[in-house]
Structure formats: structure tokens, C-alpha cells
């Protein structure tokens, strides 16, 4: 292709003209000297030299000639690639797979782990936390502490606080619905720099006296889902958790709150807490959320003033915070759980500042390690893919020997040839990258679904943005050079050595296969360890039986019930449930097993003074319904289950789990002993221990069982319970009947969180399943590619040696011996790969040690299995060419070539 004339330094035509003029002058000179015309012309041409060569040399001066040559190379490469569609398809498809996997995982990492919040100057934000030797790290602060921190205006340009409210009842025009909400301090939106796209946000002026500002701001997505983007939404009256509010504005679409992966549907001012969560706010008591210093319920973020470092801010805040803690400790007097130890713990609490520009670390903390592991897996997969393509290109270079020889013969320079071959690789890389991007876009969404919990879906906005595009482009170019350069150089060199001993090809090809086998072993071994971890976790008895249990939740206080009505409502519901055919037993609890939550408090044992190192030890408290342990099938080791008779007015009772019983009573039986826990809802009354039950997992299956105390919910009524119903049939099929039973009791009571206990258990294994399944899939793919690579190499070598094999056979070698020879060569390569792969996988498995459960990083069974699988594939890859070699007909083989 020629460049347009205007782009060139000087047109060829002009140069031709100049050369022509030169020649004419010289001819004239010669004529003047008396030469005959023919000779004059001939002499002029001889003096001038080759005009074509002059033109070429002149053009090399041209900078743009380089670009012109590149365009030529691209056109030529495209033509060559089009001529071998199978090769192109195989390379582009495998690259698309490799690059697509990398892009998909990277875009997840970018969104979930690296991205900053979509707010003004997120890098200035810090999250405040407190840390103490007794309690550890605490993300939340009490309101009094927040008030003090707000005053630190010399280091902060502002401080904000918020609290998430899960599963709010959001009623519009008499229709209920669920929403994720948050309580925010007045400066929340202005400090973040988030402007309303409609109406206004919540402003500092909204934070008035408790209950005085019933205004709400809704999120864009909720506006779309519930109001179909109705612009008239501002001014609309709504009911949140049975309390009236007015919508004043809508936040922009990119704003999701301060917790990546979650979504805020509605925000209301902090001072409205008693309206939306009356059970939580406890106004007018010593536990009032606005005055009690020990009620840590607010997440606090601040914006550093420009030029103020975190350390400087911390130094400035320390004295203020220390004073707050001292005052708080004094404020404990008269409270049932006041003790010198508690006060000491209060005073010993220190402030900590973390970067807050990425928001709360919930998703980040959960998926950081798994995502990086999967990223490493796909990177290794890409290396295996590259090795395969490099091998393909080597073979192709050999097949193109004739073409390359011709091009060299007609004057192509070697560097130009290499450039053209590299351009070919780059085109392949870019093609793979482009399709990979499409694949990643599609896979990214599926991956998010895989990551999402059924209860709390992960709402990340994964789409290929600039960062991801740059990543994909650089990965494409990098891989293209990785697999392209060596084969290109080899191909260009090969024709010099006319003897055609392709030894270098074999050495490099062998090295590629060895690398593939080694990397595959690492991936297979990792996948094996992670899969067995998943199996171990699933097989482990979690302290309950997750089969055929249906879960669903209600929160009657949110729809207008009074606390005194709760017990009778729950009893009526249980009666209805038990009357449904197929229901074996029904109960309820504040938290269901593996729902990742319980309250904790300190426990006092009557007549027992704990040693000082244990005085602040806490136990988990769980209020449960009658026949709870029979229903979830937690073994009662000693004593009896709770019954319907354990209610207000009756003797106050409690049940300990095995860990708690052992912690407080050692080997003696705790039955009949009495405990109290004044820190739990301020009730100091003594509870008789009536049973000891097996430990059950509450947070996740890996946890060390925590000490737990169970109390009858009828003796300590709470709103917001989850029912556990064990059925004789498929629990999902009983769901309709159960929900109808609730509707029949009270049609206005919203039911949420309907699912089976098994799915809740599966949810808790989400990361493990994600990592195990992805690493298995990619490991299998890598193994397949390595197998194909090995097969290709051996098949090629057999093909090349047909002649030699024929001679061997003619000299009396038996087919078995020939097959053995080929197979031995294959296994030698595979063995070399394993020799490198085994130590490498040992190192790799140590890196994922923290993700394993029930087995060690160098688990012998897994190692052996991985070696067996990898060498099995290698043997298979070698067997096919070996069989072909053994069937070579010496007569035909000798005539070969």
C-alpha cells in the first residue's frame, strides 16, 4: 500500500524528474566532450548507478516509510492469516479464553478491591475505628464519641456518621416493600460531595431533635424500581417501618452508599432512629442510643483537611478521644454491668485511622484473597495458552520455510521478515484480546452472580472502563510478544541453515512443553486442595441438620405491634404452622444458624469469681423458641429442650453450649447452676441452666465454636425473628402454605428472607465454592492445553522421523520398541515438567494455606492425585503418536521425502 502523496516527504515522481534532469545534463556534458550519442547515454547511466536503488534509498530516509512498511506488514499478515483460517481460529479462540478470563477477574478486582468511591476527592477520606486489647478492633462508635470527633475541625474539614438498616419496610400508597436503608448524619452528603439529581439530599439542617425531621432521600435504582423514575416523587409521602416520611430527593445513579457491593435504597436523618427502629433506639432509658457511651452503632468517616497527614490527625485526636473514654467510663456507674474491668477496657481503647476512600471493606475483606487466588490461576492459564500458541507458531514457521526462503531470496531483509512475523503475532494477540473483552463482559456478570449471596446479593457495577481496557490491551500485546518473538526469530533464521536440522526448534518446543506440564501441575494441585477443602467443610457436622428446614423472617414491631403483643403473635403463628400437613416441628430464633450474627455479652456465674484474664470474656446470646434444638436437630447432651412452658412468669432458664459449659464449669455438670448477664438488655436476673447442647456454627463453617448461651425468647421477647420449620417433605414446597398461614393471621405483616437452611449453608460456602470451581475449571483447561501441546510436539517429531523409524524397523526393531521409544521421550519431558512443578506447587500451596480446611498445604493424597492426573494426561498425549509410530510401514517410510 502506498501512502497518499501529501503524507510523503517528497513524491517519487519529483525524484524521478530530478534524476531525469541529472541524466540529461550528464549526457549533454558527454556529448559536449565529443562522445557519440549512444555512448554518451550509456556512460551517463553508468556514472549514475542504479536509479531504482537510489529511489529506494531515498525513501528509507522518509520517516513515514516506516509506517508505510508497517501498514504493508499488517495487510500482508491479515492476508496470510485469512489463508489459514483454522490456525487463526484456534489461536484467537484460545487467546480469547485466556485473555477473557484474565480481563473478567481483573475487572472484578478493579471494581471490588481497587476502585475509589464515586465521591469528591475520595483519597482525603479516612475511616475512624477504635482498638482495645480486650475487645480488639471496633468499627463503630457511640453517639457521644461521634459528637466529640465532629469537633476536631483543626484536622478534619468534616466528619460524618451513618448506620445501615437492613430489610426496612418501605410502604408507598398502602403497598409494602423491602428496602435497604441507612441513617445518616446531617453532613453525610455535603461532605461526600454527592448532589441530588432530583430535589435535595439530606442537609445539616435536617439533623434536629429526635423525631423532628421525617425526610427521606431515595437511591436512583430504587427510584427506577419502585417509582419508574417518576419525577413527581419529590414530596411523596411514604411509610418507613410504620413511621411516616416525605421523600425530598433522589441520589445520582453512581452513588451506592459507602459500602461497595451493597446498595442503599433510602437514607433518613440520624435523629429519626427511634421512628424507624424503636426497639433499637431505647429512648429515655440508660441505653438510649444518643446518650449511652457504650452503645457503638455509628460508622464514622472524616475528610482530612488538605495537607494534613493521617498520623498528624491521629496525634491531634488522641487527647480528645481519651477524654471521651474517661468520661464514658464514669458514665457507667449505676449500670448493672459496671465493673472495674469494664472501666479499664473503656479507658484502654485507642483511636485508629484507616483510609476510607474505598468505603467500608465488607466485600473487599471477604473476596480479597479468593479473587487474588483466581487472578493468579488465570494468569498461569494464560502462560500455558501462550506456550501452546508459541509451539503452534514454531510448527507453522517450519511449514512456511519455502515462503520465507522465497521472500529472503527476492531481497527481504531478515529484520523486516521478523517484523512481519511479529506483526502477525500482535494481530493475533489483539484479535484474542478483542474477543476476550466480549467474553469478559459476559463472564463478569455471571461471576458476580456466582459471588452473590442469596440474602445479600453483591451489587457491583462491573463494566469495561478505561482501566480494564488498558489492562486488556497490555495483556494482549504482552502475550503476543511472549508467544511471537522466539518463533519469529527461529523462522527467519531457519532458512540460512539449509541443512534444516531443526534442533533448536525441538529444544525450544521441549522447553515450552516442560513449562506447560509444570504450570498445569501447580494448577491441578491448587484446584485439588481447594476442592477438598470445600468437601471437608460440607461433610463436617455443623451442629445442626440443614436438610428439609425452611427459614423465613418477620418483624412485627415495624408494622405497628407493641412489644407486649409479640409472644401471643408468635404462639399463634407456631400453632398454625404445626397444623400444616408435612410440617414436623416449628420454632424460631433471633438469628438462624449460619446467618452470620448473634449478640454477645459477659456472663456471671453465681458463686464464681473468674480469674482476671477471663473477667472480660464474652459469650454469644441467642433467644430461641420452644423445641428449638429438636427442630434444628442440635444434640442435647445434658438436660432438656426449651418448651412452651418456659415463658414470662415461669422460672427463668437458660441452656449452654458445650464450649460455654466447659469454659465456665470445666468437667462438672452445670445443670441447676445459675448465671446472669446484666449486659444483655440490662436484665440482671438469674437464669437456671437446664441443659447443655452440642456446639453449632453461627458465622461460618470454619469458625472455632464460640461459647453460647441460649435463653427462651418468650422470657425475653424480641421483634424480628426467623422461623425454622422442619418438614417431612421438600421444604420449598411447604413455603406457600406457611406464608399463607402468616397472611391469614395478619395480612399486613411482611415476610422476608424465605429460603432453606441448606441454601443458607451453601451461601456461607460461597467463596470456597467460587474459588474451588473456578480453579478446577481453569486447572482442567490448562491440563487440556498442556496435553494438546505435548501431543502436538510428539506427533510432529514422529512425523519428522518417519524416515528414521522406517530404517529402524527395516533393521529389525519391533513396533513395541518403537512405541516405547516415542513414549519414553514424552514421559521424559513430562517428568521434567513434574520435577519443576512439584516444588513450585508446594510453594504455591503454602500461599493459599489460609484458605484450606481440614488438610495441610502439602497434603500427600492431593499431591499424589495431582501428579497422577497430570502424568496420565501426558501419557495419553504421548500414546497416540507412539501408536502411530509403531504402525509405520518401513517400505513407505523409506520412500518418504
Amino acid at each position: 500500500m502506498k501512502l497518499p502523496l501529501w503524507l510523503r516527504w517528497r513524491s517519487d515522481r519529483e525524484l524521478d524528474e530530478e534524476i531525469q534532469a541529472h541524466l540529461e545534463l550528464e549526457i549533454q556534458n558527454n556529448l559536449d566532450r565529443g562522445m557519440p550519442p549512444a555512448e554518451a547515454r550509456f556512460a551517463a547511466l553508468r556514472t549514475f548507478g542504479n536509479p531504482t536503488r537510489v529511489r529506494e534509498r531515498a525513501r528509507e530516509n522518509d520517516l513515514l516509510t516506516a509506517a508505510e512498511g508497517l501498514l504493508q506488514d499488517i495487510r500482508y499478515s491479515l492476508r496470510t492469516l485469512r489463508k489459514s483460517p483454522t490456525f487463526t481460529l484456534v489461536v484467537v479462540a484460545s487467546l480469547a479464553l485466556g485473555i477473557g478470563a484474565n480481563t473478567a477477574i481483573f475487572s472484578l478486582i478493579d471494581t471490588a478491591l481497587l476502585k475509589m468511591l464515586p465521591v469528591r476527592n475520595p483519597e482525603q477520606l479516612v475511616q475512624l475505628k477504635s482498638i482495645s486489647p480486650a475487645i480488639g478492633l471496633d468499627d463503630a462508635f457511640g453517639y457521644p464519641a461521634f459528637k466529640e470527633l465532629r469537633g476536631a475541625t483543626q484536622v478534619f474539614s468534616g466528619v460524618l456518621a451513618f448506620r445501615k438498616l437492613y430489610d426496612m419496610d418501605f410502604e408507598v400508597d398502602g403497598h409494602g416493600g423491602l428496602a435497604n436503608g441507612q441513617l445518616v448524619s446531617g453532613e453525610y452528603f455535603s461532605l461526600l460531595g454527592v448532589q441530588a439529581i432530583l430535589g435535595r439530599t439530606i442537609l445539616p439542617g435536617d439533623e434536629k431533635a429526635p423525631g423532628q425531621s421525617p425526610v427521606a432521600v431515595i437511591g436512583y435504582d430504587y427510584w427506577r424500581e419502585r417509582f419508574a423514575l417518576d419525577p413527581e416523587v419529590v414530596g411523596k409521602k411514604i411509610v418507613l417501618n410504620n413511621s411516616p416520611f416525605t421523600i425530598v430527593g433522589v441520589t445520582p445513579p453512581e452513588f451506592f452508599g459507602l459500602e461497595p457491593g451493597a446498595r442503599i435504597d433510602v437514607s433518613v436523618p440520624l435523629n429519626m432512629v427511634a421512628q424507624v427502629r424503636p426497639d433499637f433506639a431505647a429512648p429515655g432509658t440508660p441505653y438510649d442510643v444518643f446518650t449511652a457511651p457504650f452503645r457503638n452503632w455509628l460508622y464514622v468517616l472524616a475528610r482530612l483537611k488538605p495537607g494534613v497527614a493521617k498520623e498528624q490527625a491521629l496525634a491531634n485526636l488522641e487527647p480528645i478521644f481519651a477524654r471521651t473514654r474517661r468520661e464514658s467510663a464514669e458514665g457507667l456507674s449505676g449500670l448493672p454491668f459496671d465493673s472495674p474491668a469494664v472501666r479499664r477496657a473503656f479507658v484502654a481503647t485507642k483511636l485508629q485511622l484507616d483510609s476510607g476512600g474505598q468505603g467500608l471493606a465488607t466485600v473487599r475483606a471477604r473476596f480479597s484473597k479468593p479473587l487474588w487466588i483466581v487472578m493468579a490461576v488465570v494468569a498461569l492459564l494464560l502462560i500455558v495458552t501462550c506456550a501452546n500458541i508459541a509451539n503452534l507458531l514454531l510448527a507453522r514457521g517450519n511449514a512456511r520455510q519455502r515462503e520465507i526462503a522465497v521472500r529472503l531470496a527476492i531481497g527481504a531483509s531478515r529484520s523486516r521478515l521478523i517484523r512481519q512475523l511479529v506483526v502477525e503475532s500482535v494481530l493475533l494477540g489483539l484479535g484474542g484480546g478483542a474477543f476476550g473483552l466480549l467474553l469478559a463482559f459476559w463472564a463478569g456478570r455471571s461471576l458476580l452472580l456466582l459471588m452473590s449471596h442469596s440474602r445479600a446479593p453483591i451489587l457491583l457495577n462491573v463494566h469495561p472502563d478505561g482501566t480494564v481496557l488498558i489492562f486488556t490491551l497490555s495483556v494482549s500485546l504482552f502475550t503476543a510478544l511472549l508467544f511471537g518473538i522466539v518463533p519469529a526469530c527461529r523462522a527467519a533464521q531457519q532458512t540460512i541453515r539449509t541443512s534444516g536440522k531443526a534442533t533448536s526448534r525441538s529444544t525450544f518446543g521441549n522447553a515450552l512443553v516442560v513449562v506447560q506440564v509444570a504450570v498445569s501441575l501447580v494448577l491441578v494441585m491448587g484446584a485439588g486442595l481447594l476442592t477438598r477443602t470445600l468437601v471437608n467443610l460440607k461433610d463436617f457436622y455443623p451442629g445442626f441438620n440443614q436438610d428439609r428446614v425452611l427459614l423465613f423472617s418477620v418483624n412485627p414491631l415495624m408494622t405497628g405491634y407493641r412489644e407486649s403483643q409479640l409472644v401471643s403473635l408468635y404462639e399463634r403463628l407456631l400453632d398454625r404452622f404445626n397444623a400444616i400437613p408435612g410440617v414436623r416441628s416449628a420454632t424460631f430464633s433471633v438469628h438462624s444458624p449460619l446467618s452470620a450474627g448473634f449478640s454477645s455479652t459477659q456472663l456471671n456465674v453465681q458463686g464464681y469469681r473468674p480469674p482476671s484474664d477471663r473477667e472480660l470474656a464474652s459469650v454469644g446470646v441467642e433467644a430461641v423458641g420452644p423445641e428449638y434444638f429438636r427442630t434444628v436437630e442440635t444434640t442435647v447432651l445434658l438436660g432438656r429442650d426449651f418448651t412452651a412452658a418456659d415463658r414470662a412468669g415461669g422460672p427463668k432458664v437458660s441452656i449452654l453450649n458445650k464450649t460455654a459449659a466447659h469454659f465456665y464449669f470445666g468437667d462438672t455438670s452445670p445443670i441447676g447452676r445459675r448465671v446472669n448477664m446484666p449486659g444483655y438488655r440490662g436484665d440482671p436476673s438469674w437464669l437456671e441452666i437446664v441443659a447443655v447442647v452440642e456446639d453449632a456454627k453461627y458465622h461460618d463453617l470454619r469458625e472455632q465454636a464460640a461459647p453460647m448461651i441460649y435463653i427462651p425468647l418468650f422470657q425475653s421477647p424480641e421483634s424480628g425473628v426467623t422461623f425454622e420449620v422442619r418438614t417431612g417433605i421438600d421444604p420449598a414446597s411447604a413455603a406457600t402454605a406457611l406464608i399463607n398461614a402468616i397472611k391469614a393471621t395478619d395480612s399486613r405483616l411482611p415476610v422476608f428472607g424465605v429460603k432453606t437452611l441448606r441454601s443458607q449453608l451453601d451461601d456461607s460456602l460461597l467463596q470456597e465454592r467460587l474459588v474451588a470451581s473456578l480453579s478446577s475449571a481453569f486447572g482442567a483447561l490448562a491440563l487440556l492445553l498442556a496435553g494438546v501441546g505435548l501431543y502436538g510436539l510428539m506427533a510432529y517429531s514422529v512425523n519428522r522421523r518417519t524416515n528414521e523409524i522406517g530404517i529402524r524397523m527395516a533393521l529389525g526393531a519391533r513396533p513395541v520398541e518403537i512405541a516405547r521409544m516415542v513414549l519414553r521421550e514424552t514421559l521424559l519431558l513430562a517428568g521434567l515438567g513434574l520435577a519443576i512443578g512439584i516444588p513450585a506447587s508446594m510453594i504455591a500451596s503454602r500461599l493459599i494455606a489460609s484458605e484450606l480446611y481440614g488438610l495441610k498445604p502439602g497434603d500427600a493424597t492431593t499431591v499424589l492425585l495431582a501428579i497422577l492426573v497430570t502424568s496420565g494426561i501426558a501419557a495419553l498425549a504421548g500414546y497416540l503418536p507412539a501408536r502411530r509410530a509403531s504402525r509405520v510401514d518401513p517400505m513407505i517410510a523409506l520412500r518418504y521425502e
Partner: protein
Amino acid sequence: MSPRVTERNPEDRIQLLQGTLDLLILQTLVFGPCHGHGIATGIERTSEEVLLIDHGSLYPALQRLERAGLIASEWGTSDKNRRARFYKLTRSGRARLAAETGKWEKMVRAVGRILRARGEEAT
């Protein structure tokens, strides 16, 4: 690639050092604008026919010099009433010539000294 320069006796062909042709072109243009053919014959004549140039090799060199801004060119009419491209020295070309001439002379002196020294040793 350096331009090939031939002496009267074809067996004594030598390869000119890189950049020498450039220097010769610049020097020739000191006497005023000139077209390619004029430069070629000028060099030959001035060197008393010791240096013969492949005329063709002149043109890539002229383009290179023009791109570097050392010479400029325009179409004009030769003394024999023919159309030809005339090259002339630019200000920076003049400066470069002065600098290069100085360097060249220094080098010739140095090389000459070394060669003479060896010659004396040998005798």
C-alpha cells in the same frame, strides 16, 4: 551505507567514511546554489578527478541533508536552460560545515601522525 567513491584506477576503490559525502556536498554548496549534477561534477573537478562519485548516491544524501535542515532546495533553470532542482546551504548548514571541517582536519592530522609514526618505526 557510505557512498562508494572510486579513484582513477578501479582497483584502488575505497569506502569513504560515513558522513564524508555530506561534508563534500556542504563544502561544494559554499560557492552558491547548485543542482545535483553540478555538485557531482563540482566534487570531481575540485578533487582533480581523484574522487569519482556514483552520481545516484548523491540524491539520498541530499534528501537526508534537506530533512536535517542543513540545505534547502527549489526548482530552477540550469545554465543550459533545463529544469533542475537547486540546493543551497542554510544558516545551520553553514555552521555544521564549519564544525565538521574543524573535526575533519583534526582527525586527518591525528590519523596522519599515527600513520607516520608507524612508518618511521618500520624504517
